């Protein structure tokens, strides 16, 4: 589903990613771990197509297409979802309105009619329940005045609504208490199917107590320095990132 080959990327002329290789197949959950500043969020931004990230070498192939010249909205409409580390506030735009616009844009892309009001309402209710998002929240403006936990839950809710093929969750677990984390993890687990894939970007191992990854990669100074099964996460937790430093 996703194939990243020798990816080099810079932000404002500074090289952050220095040759990443990553292969993600449908049905898999990958965890990317690493200390702060190792390039985790840059990798997520590069895949999603944020224009501050300049790709200098290598390529990203998603469902058989090179993402090089594809704008972010087209990537999104082709099933790529990014759960933001810092979800953005959009004052005055209700989650209901935002989601309806997003869903209809996605439908238009697929040549479908706009979603009917009743269908949309049904979908909203269903997905709200799935991620435990209070219905009061969906009438509020997108992320405005939300607590950290509410923002992250809202990201999972949007993921549930849009049913992506590939979801990249950028530090969705950071700043969450254990109950909120369980809800997020539960959402990820419930949405897992044989035809979709998830990349969890995280600093801590604890999310991986609730979502069992198929692969764990350690990103360090812009390179993936170690890839293994889920046991790698535990080892990291035990020995700390200094261990990686020494290994490298």
């Amino acid at each position, binding site marked *: 589903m996703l194939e990243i080959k020798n990816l080099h990327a810079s932000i404002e002329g500074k090289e952050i990613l220095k040759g990443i290789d990553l292969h993600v197949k449908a049905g898999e959950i990958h965890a990317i771990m690493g200390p702060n500043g190792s390039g985790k969020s840059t990798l997520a931004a590069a895949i999603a197509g944020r224009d501050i990230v300049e790709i200098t070498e290598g390529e990203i192939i998603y469902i058989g297409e090179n993402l090089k010249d594809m*704008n972010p909205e087209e990537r999104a409409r082709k099933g790529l979802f990014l759960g933001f580390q810092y979800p953005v506030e959009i004052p*005055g*735009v209700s989650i209901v309105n935002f989601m309806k616009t997003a869903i209809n844009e996605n439908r238009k892309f697929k040549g479908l009619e706009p979603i009917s009001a009743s269908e949309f309402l049904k979908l909203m209710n269903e997905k709200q329940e799935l991620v435990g998002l209070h219905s009061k929240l969906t009438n509020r403006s997108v992320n405005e005045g939300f607590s950290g936990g509410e923002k992250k839950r809202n990201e999972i809710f949007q993921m549930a609504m849009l049913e992506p093929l590939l979801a990249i969750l950028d530090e969705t677990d950071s700043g969450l208490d254990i109950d909120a984390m369980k809800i997020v993890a539960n959402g990820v687990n419930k949405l897992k199917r044989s035809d979709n894939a998830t990349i969890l970007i995280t600093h801590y191992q604890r999310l991986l107590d609730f979502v069992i990854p198929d692969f764990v990669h350690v990103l360090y100074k812009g390179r993936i320095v170690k890839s293994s099964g889920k046991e790698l996460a535990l080892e990291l937790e035990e020995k700390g990132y200094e261990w990686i430093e020494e290994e490298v």
Partner: protein
Amino acid sequence: MQMPSQSKIVQGMDASQDKLLTQVTRGDYEFGFYTDIETDSFAKGLDENVIRQISIKKNEPEFMLEFRLKAYRHWLTMKMPQWAHLTIPEIDYQNIIYYAAPQLKPGLNSLDEVDPELLRTFEKLGIPLEEQKVLSGVAVDAVMDSISIKTTFKETLAELGVIFCSMSEAIREYPDLVKKYIGSVVPYTDNFFATLNSAVFSDGSFCYIPKGVRCPMELSTYFRINTANTGQFERTLIIADDDSYVSYLEGCTAPIRDENQLHAAVVEIITLDNAEVKYSTVQNWYPGDKNGKGGIYNFVTKRGLCKGDHSKISWTQVETGSAITWKYPSCILRGDHTTGEFYSVAITNNYQQADTGTKMIHIGKNSHSTIISKGIAAGHGQNSFRSLVKVVKKADKTRNFTQCDSLLMGDQCGAHTFPYIEVENDSAVLEHEATTSKIGEDQIFYCNQRGIDTENAIGLIINGYAREVLNKLPMEFAMEAQKLLQISLEGSVG
């Protein structure tokens, strides 16, 4: 309003947004067509004779001509105001046609006999004048250039005692009401443009809601400038008698032309005890092209008088049109426990300029006012908000809440706010909030990542920003306004 005592100028934005704004072009102006119809027009120029001719054309009683002539003589002593934050090219008032009317067959009242070309024009503007086609619940007075073409649902409204007709008709049919109220809120000496209007106004709408009647329909006036080189000077008068209510809508468009055209209107509203008038405008005059050529100069005086106790006047405006806008819908809160409200969204894109805002004059005790202004500046647009909150000595326990927000798109535009406060009574409570923001690259990317393209993302963000105001508009109008906001900014993000 006097010269600015305080000015906050916010220019510019950072480079990240700059990237989004590499090109500034405007979406097409949808209503820029011209109707080719025979017109009965005066020659260009203004003197006493022109005013007498207008009065004769309209078959007016003597008092109206006197009013006009007094205004004209006063106007000759006045100079165009210079205090607004606008660059206004010199206007040659002798180079304007002061009366232009589409040729109507004489003395016909039935709609069937209105020129089909005119019906088609309004139909194209989305304003069908055949009652069976009209949006249910909206009565329309359609004004083209200097005259009213047709007022719909007149008979239905008359059954309730509601008078809704053109100003010309009101002057002939209800001279006592007109004589009593015209100029009572905006006197003929008020300001340069209002005085000019008082001298040469040609048509407009008149509305009287009798005691105890809650008008069951939205009343609306649709202004269309058609003929080249004409000025449009319409005058609207709304009187809400005790315990009555009416919601009033105003829309306007004009053909695309390279030369500027002048629009100087006056709107007066009077509310008596417990009455309420809600006045909404979606202004979509031709704003000029992307290089600032052409467009309407919109110099308008709108003022409401809450004369009776417990009465209320609410102004809501969405300003997307005009090359230059100079407009301050205001409330004089004379009665006790009166309420004045002003909700505004004003967009300036390309080379548009707007200096708009409101005045709330608190005279009555326990009078309350609310001012919510949302300015949006894009391209080379200059957007100024100007407000005056005045509380006189005897006005006890008044309250005002003012919020003025500015949103900037690009680094060539400007947002300016000029709030004035004059309080002579210590019991007054006034609050003032102001913010300046921009559309963030991160907001747009967030929308993009959900599959929403940049153009739609801007529309969504702008409509969210303006939501408090758009929510005040009647339903059908709100939809139109939302679309309009998006169209007005089309292409302003590259």
